[in-house]
């Protein structure tokens, strides 16, 4: 293992200390480093809370900021935060309009967010939940509820965050998050594994000349392991999966996110996007918004994911709206 660490067990807390020192627009609440919140909550606005395991920056906490989220409960590497941490974040971001939970579809996170929601309701805070499950590879059509949440959750944050910033009520913000969820699909491909600091070695191997299509962001098994193909063929394999579920043609508009998993250079992401763009062009669909870079990583894993959000008249301006967080800045054109 070759990582910049002091002690492996301090990995998460020292990362957080660095973030708080770098970015005064965020702070901790309940005297707990792992209860991460905006320093400037807006009275009367729906609070949006996310959370999940560490090891995925900028996911999850990176989207706390203006026009996006209000708080994030931070777990250990690949571990859920506790229900109490989620509750503390919930209490802080409650500004009289209720709180929306948006997080990924993982058993531990569901249990703790549900528990926190139940405890928050006892304190008269209205809570709604939308669970991201965009990873097409992780379950078949008809069993979408079993799909994991991966990089596409960014679109849920973006749409719901912009809706909340327009002071929409809780049920409306939740409806928009749900609409973004239902229209977001992601496929990933991994080229090399990641190393959990406290474990010190990879939990699995991917051969030097291999790729694994559909691998999860914690190294969950994908749908096929094969020889690494040329970039265009890799994109085709991934998009074919998405297009098999959702057809795009003339008059359709999408937002696309090409996400690096941690060790893949931006150059390669653009090579992937080149083919993504060609495919939508061939289909006659318009790519209205494009983001490339690291949005949901798996530490030093090499690989990428492609997320597609189908836009409509309601989602499009929300996705295009400005946002400003320590890890994500977007200026509306």
């Amino acid at each position, binding site marked *: 293992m070759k990582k910049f660490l002091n002690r492996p067990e301090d990995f998460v807390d020292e990362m957080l200390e660095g973030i708080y020192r770098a970015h005064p627009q965020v702070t901790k609440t309940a005297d707990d480093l792992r209860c991460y919140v905006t320093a400037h909550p807006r009275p009367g606005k729906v609070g949006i809370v996310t959370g999940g395991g560490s090891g995925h920056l900028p996911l999850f906490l990176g989207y706390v900021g203006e026009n996006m989220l209000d708080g994030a409960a931070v777990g250990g590497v690949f571990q859920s935060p*506790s*229900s109490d941490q989620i509750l503390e974040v919930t209490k802080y971001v409650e500004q009289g309009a209720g709180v929306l939970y948006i997080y990924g579809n993982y058993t531990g996170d*569901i*249990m*703790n967010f549900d528990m926190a929601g139940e*405890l928050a309701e006892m304190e008269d805070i209205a809570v709604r939940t939308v669970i991201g499950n965009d990873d097409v590879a992780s379950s078949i059509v008809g069993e979408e509820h079993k799909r994991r949440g991966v990089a596409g959750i960014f679109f849920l944050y973006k749409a719901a965050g912009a809706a909340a910033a327009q002071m929409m009520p809780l049920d409306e913000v939740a409806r928009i998050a749900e609409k973004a969820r239902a229209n977001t699909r992601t496929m990933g491909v991994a080229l090399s594994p990641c190393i959990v600091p406290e474990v010190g070695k990879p939990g699995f191997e991917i051969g030097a000349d291999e790729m694994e299509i559909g691998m999860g962001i914690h190294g969950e098994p994908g749908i096929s392991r094969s020889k690494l193909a040329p970039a265009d063929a890799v994109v085709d394999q991934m998009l074919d999966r998405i297009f098999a579920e959702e057809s795009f043609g003339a008059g359709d508009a999408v937002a696309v996110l090409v996400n690096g998993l941690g060790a893949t250079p931006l150059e390669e992401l653009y090579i992937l996007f080149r083919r993504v763009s060609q495919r939508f062009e061939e289909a006659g669909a318009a790519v209205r918004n494009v983001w490339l870079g690291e949005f949901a990583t798996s530490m030093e894993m090499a690989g990428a994911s492609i997320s597609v959000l189908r836009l409509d008249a309601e989602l499009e301006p929300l996705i295009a709206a400005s946002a400003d967080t320590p890890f994500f800045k977007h200026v509306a054109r």
Partner: protein
Amino acid sequence: MSLHDLRPLFERLARAFEEKRDELIALDGKVGDSDLGITMAKGFAAARDAVSALGAASPAAQAKHAGAAIAKAAPSTMGTLMGTGFLRGSKAIETAESVGTAELAAFFAAFRDGIAQRGRAKLGDKTVLDVLDPIAAALEAEAARGTAPEPALAHAVEAARDGLEKTRDLVAQHGKAAAFQEKSRGLPDAGGTAALILAEAFHAAFAEAG
């Protein structure tokens, strides 16, 4: 007889989980991360303190505050599940002024169902459910027969012991123990052991009340 005030029950639970702390740590350590004994002792101590701070209140309010206190003080899977059990159980006895056999049956059925839902486990997965289910079933049968709370809980404790014994033959499907799969065979489930301790403490509290 039925109980109006659950404070003695929560005293009893806190003491029981403190006494069994090391036993649970040792059991959990064989297939998990040994934190079960610690989190249960912490959780039920917090429940006792929360219920005591609440003063006179309905059984449902006492169970609800206990559940919230456990969830907060014991941020582990079993702490969250136990907390959920008390919260859901409290809802099932919302209007009851005292707890008799019928209320115990309703409480433990909701306790079991809440944990099954939140933990997404099913019977036979070698979890706390494999002991909670016989407890709830025994109480339901005794409530139907009109048995008094103390003998009904005595039967529930017997059912819990049988249920726990049967978990020895099961293979863990959830949590850290799942990683040990076959190694878990032969051992009683640690969460199930906590459920037996729970039933025993309920029985002792009602026995003491006469």
